[in-house]
């Protein structure tokens, strides 16, 4: 989608008047829809639809060997598939840059041990640990990918259940594990501190939250902040613009405020989701 100068001016004026093209305020989100446990083969999954942005996140858990320098910690990795269904720009290797940018930002946001406790994923020191694969599929791209993905990732991790390891036996060099067969014997991950990302898009003199793709085109740069329990876990400037240090601080404060609000809304939504709710069109 390309915009003409007149359209861009229209959006810019709307942002100045605090009345955006879809009637929102500058710090309002578009309506969201969240579903969890939608994929049976995954250990946890979530689908988030934020107006026109649609992402599916699935979590797979497998057994791996811990990093030699961190023998007590498990691993987590993020993979993003920018499918060409989302926008024609992603065709071929078009989405690759965006995918590495998002997955690296997610890795950075989840890297701290005060955000996610990796020691919980350790099975046997230096020998066995759980590795969490978070696969993100972008189905439709209507702006504000970062926020949508981070919410979906948090919901999918909330939904994830890790099989219970009953016992570990060591025989010489072989490590044998006994994993509980009972499906209800599962460990839930503690995701209370998992970060949520907020994109602040600078349009004119103001910053908007949750930009549509049209607004993203008018922006002179954006800041992505990852907020975990009111603290910043990652800040990342993107989109080719620059900011005055004072403006930057203002944006960061706004980001923290919005992030906390988003976290409250998400935990409220998650608490409403019933255990073992049936999913799909057939029910």
């Amino acid at each position, binding site marked *: 989608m390309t915009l003409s100068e007149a359209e861009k001016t229209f959006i810019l004026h709307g942002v100045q008047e605090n009345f955006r093209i879809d009637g929102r305020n500058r710090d309002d989100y578009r309506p969201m829809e969240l579903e969890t446990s939608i994929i049976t083969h995954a250990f946890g999954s979530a689908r988030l639809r934020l107006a026109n942005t649609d992402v599916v996140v699935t979590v797979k858990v497998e057994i791996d060997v811990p990093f030699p*320098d961190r023998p007590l910690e498990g691993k987590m990795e993020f993979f993003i598939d920018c499918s060409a269904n989302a926008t024609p720009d992603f065709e071929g290797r078009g989405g690759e840059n965006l995918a*590495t940018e998002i997955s690296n930002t997610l890795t950075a946001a989840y890297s701290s041990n005060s955000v996610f406790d990796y020691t919980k994923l350790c099975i046997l020191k230096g020998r066995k640990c759980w590795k969490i694969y978070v696969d993100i599929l972008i189905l439709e791209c209507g702006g504000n990918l970062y926020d949508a993905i981070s919410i979906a990732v948090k919901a999918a991790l909330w939904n994830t259940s890790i099989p219970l390891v009953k016992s570990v036996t060591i025989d010489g060099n072989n490590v044998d594990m006994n994993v509980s067969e009972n499906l209800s014997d599962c460990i839930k991950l503690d995701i209370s501190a998992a970060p949520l990302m907020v994109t602040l898009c600078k349009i004119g003199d103001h910053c908007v939250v949750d930009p549509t793709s049209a607004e993203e085109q008018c922006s002179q740069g954006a800041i992505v902040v990852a907020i975990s329990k009111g603290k910043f*876990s990652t800040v990342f400037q993107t989109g080719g613009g620059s900011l005055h240090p004072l403006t930057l*601080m203002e944006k960061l404060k706004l980001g923290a405020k919005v992030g906390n609000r988003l976290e409250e809304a998400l935990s409220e939504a998650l608490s409403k989701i019933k255990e073992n709710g049936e999913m799909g069109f057939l029910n």
Partner: protein
Amino acid sequence: MPVDHKRINGPENTIPYKLYTKLNVKSFKEALQDAVKNGVRNDKRKLDEHRRIFMKTDIVSQAKGSAYIEIGNTKVVVSVFDPREIPNKNEYSLNGELYCEFKFAPFSCPKRRLHQQDAEEKQNSIVMKQALEPAVCRHEFPNFQVDVYALVLENDGSALSAAITCAGLALAQAGIPMFDIITSVTIGIQGDLKLLDPMLHEETLCYTSINKNSKTGKNSHGIVILSLLNTHQQVTEFYQVGSLDIDDIEECTKVLTEANKVVVPLVEKCLAKHVIKGVKESSQ
């Protein structure tokens, strides 16, 4: 760079021997106490003091512009090549582009780096691109891209900052039109300590929370990299990892803005030297 599938990278499961030495047994807390004693760091620096910086332009004769920087033991070479048409692009883009590639040399870190770019290097490339783009007059070369290659020869902390400052210098030497001199400084935070221009072991200390379980100590930790156009007072890239609250970030921004001001005259001096040399050569 296209991935070379034929290259044999050697066994992937090798690990540095240091993991087995006694030094490694130290807990994070002890390591932190060793790193900072009474507000003085291992190399006798104060907390808010830079390491010694050396810069030189015109290092690579094949490149349009190049620069070399040493910050303490961190050594980075950056080369910038002539603008060329953006490859594989259908649409005409009004603004030129920068292509940045950040690479650790295989021997630059305690652990051997592989030839292919790993996730960290890719992320650093993206951060570098974002930091440099606002400094360059991209409208001056529409539909063209300028290639910037940064190679870290030795990593002793703050390598990304060094690469950005050095790339700014190399771009200027290459004659790429720019708005301002770009500089970048890193700060590491662990609890109440704020370590400007951290060394590698200090950086590692800042990545994990040490006081996590104790209720008393402050458990902020993280790394902040700030790139600044000094005359315009514009932050081109603010990159933070870790867990910090807003007050920490505010303080860090202040410290880093001041710290960047210290680096600017060094870059200016280096560029002036380059110009004087050019004038002398042409008059002969």
